[in-house]
């Protein structure tokens, strides 16, 4: 099977005043359809930078990055926008919902621009919020808000779901619920889910775990027997 994402010597550096910071150095990897991947690393290791590259939120400094054979490293801002629009779904630690749109409307904000969106009702059912469709974010708990954020990302029906510390602001029980949803999306729809976290507990449910340190991909663990989300603990 051909990989959907390929990185070769992927590098990113920032100019901070007079200092040049290498946030990511010569990273190589391949990611396949339907994979559940966890990127692990301490704060400042470069994992967010990696996520930004994969998600088309930032331009590559050096090296190559391909999505289904199409180069992302040479893409301009317009192409990157289209890539995000049609291929990627994002979930953040802080839910980033629109406060003045209700649950249903928050999701339709995403489906309106997608090419082949899922039905909002289906997605709401999947995340268990059918009865909260008319609620505004301020009327929802943190876990519920994160589930709306997740529903919003899934509803676009993206090939890749990128999650940046999706459980970072949630308690343990709620976190497990969210992880279950992610796993189900990955399996039921055969989509790629990439989670970045510094919570090593989550790594057990991944097919593969990327370890990042000082901007370098130090090694990749293959997990022959990923555990179900219920079995995860930290």
């Amino acid at each position, binding site marked *: 099977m051909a990989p959907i994402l390929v990185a070769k010597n992927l590098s990113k550096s920032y100019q901070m005043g007079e200092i040049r910071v290498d946030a990511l150095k010569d990273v190589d990897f391949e990611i396949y359809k339907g994979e559940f991947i966890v990127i692990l690393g301490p704060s400042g290791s470069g994992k967010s930078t990696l996520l930004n590259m994969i998600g088309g939120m930032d331009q590559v400094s050096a090296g190559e990055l391909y999505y289904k054979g199409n180069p992302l490293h040479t893409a301009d801002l317009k192409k990157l926008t289209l890539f*995000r629009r049609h291929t990627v779904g994002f979930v953040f630690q*802080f839910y980033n919902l629109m406060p003045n*749109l209700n649950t249903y409307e928050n999701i339709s904000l995403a489906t309106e*621009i997608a090419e082949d969106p899922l039905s909002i009702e289906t997605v709401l059912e999947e995340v268990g919020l059918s009865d909260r469709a008319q609620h505004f974010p301020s009327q929802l708990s943190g876990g519920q808000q994160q589930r709306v954020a997740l529903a919003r990302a899934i509803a676009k029906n993206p090939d890749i779901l990128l999650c940046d510390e999706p459980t970072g602001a949630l308690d343990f029980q709620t976190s497990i619920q969210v992880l279950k949803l992610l796993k189900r999306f990955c399996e039921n729809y055969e989509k790629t889910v990439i989670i970045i976290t510094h919570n090593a507990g989550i790594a057990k449910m991944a097919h593969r775990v990327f370890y990042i340190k000082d901007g370098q991909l130090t090694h990749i663990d293959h997990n022959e027997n990923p555990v179900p989300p219920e079995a995860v603990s930290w």
Partner: protein
Amino acid sequence: MLRKKVIRDLKENKGAYIACITVIVLGLIIFTSFSMVIDNLHLAQTRFYNQQNFADGFAEIQAIPYSEMDHLKKLKGIDNLQGRLVKDVKLVLKDQDKNIYLRLISIDPTQENNINEMVLSQGIPLDRQEMNIWVDNKFFETHQLKLAQEIEIIASGKKKNLRIVGMGKSPEYIYALRTANDLFPTPETFGIAWMPLERMKTLLGTGETVNNIVFTLKPNTDYKDVEELLIPELKPYGLKNIFARKDQTSHLILTQEIQGLEAMARSVPLLFLAVAGMILYIMLKRMVQQQRGQIGILKAFGYTRREIRRHYLSYALIIGTIGGVIGGLLGIWLSFPFTTLYQIYFNMPGLNSQFSLKYFVMGILLSLVFAIFAGYQGCKKALTLQPAEAMRPPAPHRGKKIILEKVSFFWQMLTVQGKMAIRNMTRNPGRSLFILLGIAFTFSLLALPWSMKDLSQQIIFDQFEKIETYDVKVALSHPLPQKKVIWELNHFPGMKRVETRADIPVTLKHNWYKKDVVLIGLPQNSHLYNILDETGHKMAPPKNGILISGRLAKLLNMEVGHSITVESLMMKDPETTSKVTVVGIIPQYLGLNAYMEIEALNTLLGQKNITTSIMLRMNESDIPALQKAYNQSSAIDAIDHQASMLAQIKELMASTSATIYIMLLFGIITGFTVVYNSAIITLSERNRELASMMVMGMTPAEVLSVITFEQWFIGFFAMILGIPLTQLMLIGMAQSVSNDVYSMPTEMTAMSLLYAFLLTSGSIWLAQKIAAKKIKKLDLVEVLKSKE
């Protein structure tokens, strides 16, 4: 250290603060420059009047013995009184096809302390034995005359040469109009000359009489009392007109110009400062919200409320000071060209501008008052927070349904961005109101000058093309029987139509209201002077009753059906008065007149078939011949050629349109600033929402549409609100600029609204385009990963 924070904060949002400063600067430019021009005009006027002994009263008489002056001088309340000869004569200048008039005014060189004395800027005293004159400087310059040059005039049908020995300015002709119907001074065709009384008597053959009296009053004397004493004294000699300084044309126009400027200087800057104040208030309020945590920390450190307040007020102080200084300096600088511009229109010495510390300081204070008030309102909330509370994030915004959602067909029509935009409006009603008012103000600022320009053009062209449609008007020096005149002119080559008209100075009285106007008598079926009603339809001059202009009706508090008393010195028996009924009120924007059928007017006066001027329609090519033929006639005062007058006015109007473009520019800048700042603030406030949308894959344009939709939505209603606002401003403006010569209509023109709509939309669009650049620079990851 806090000072550094201020400077860095200001730098971070420099675009928005510069915009705010710009609006302050615009307001202060108007305040400072107008105030200074007003002072300059006032100062020059007062000094000129005092030094030249400007008259408090004026009287025009048929002829009164010069010896009577000594007696009149002794009347109670009169300080000084002088008799003069005043007579318009035609001038013969080579290479000039136009009629040029020179108003000869006599001076008695034996008298000291002459009233309305001229300031001689070049030349020598008049020699009482010689045919020598002084002429006014504008006429002198326009015609490139030289001292010692002789000019040829036609007086009493005879050609005479007059030697120019001096030139200068007179307080009586600061704004020199030949007749009250003229709009602008036209030194090309009208000049004033002063000559020794004795020689002028000889020139005109008036014997020992004079036809004009000027007088000054003793301190604390009421003009009315003196007028009452003078009228019976003068009536036996054919008193034509007597009026106070306040009604003297030149003085009236100068005074009204100053009053108009004062009204502008008092109101317009406040509007600009209010807009700037609102911008500042919103910016500071937003900043304080953003810096909640920082305020908490400062408080936790032990900074006092006063210190924190001082810190946040210093933003306002800096903005206010910068705006005040720049606006003040620019205003002072601009007052110089403005004053120069007024030198063109108002001919008086000492009309100069100089640096004014007073208005500079007042401008800065004004700017600071607004800025500090706005700043204090913006930041007062932060000061009341407890440190621990301040460091916690503010309570999250609560989304909720709004009333508009009940209009389901409208709500369904909207995209999700549209829904967001509409809910945002209610989330921040204060700011929505600011955008609403700001755009409405912009709209009015654009529609108003445009309307005024359209209206003044329309009035003037209507007057020439629809009302006074004759080609030539011949003004007679004294009333003549109609038939004789018609017969003579009908036989002139190229003549197509001859109509007589009677322009009779009258006093109209209604209750205690009273006004001196010219009552115009016209033939029943006049083709050359059309009286138009409000809908532009022609009305016949009434045989029974009188038509009066709208402004006159207002001044006399008259309505249709009211009876009005007419007094005229041209009545066969000047002691009698007549009553006529007002049968109609018509719009009249140029001049202030009443109308009757000419025969009916003659009957009213107890006269028979007299006419004072003749209107002609004739071949354009025959007009020079007509002028040539009658130029020397002593029966004719003036031959006015409509086409050349219109050309002259068009030329003058072109030069005044610069002011209109300046006002338009101010409007565009204000609109841009309001929209740009509201966009910038919205961006900073909603960066998380907008970044989320970007991450979702929306294009910057799609993301911006949330903000732009909101602004266009409010902008649409704001522009509609701008229409009545413009109307109000137009009414206010009309009240401040209307006078007896010119009254401004208050109907907005469709073109002005269209232009205002386009220009306002243009400035909204431009501001959004520039704000869009900020969206592209949003650091998505930074925004989204930060805590709410």
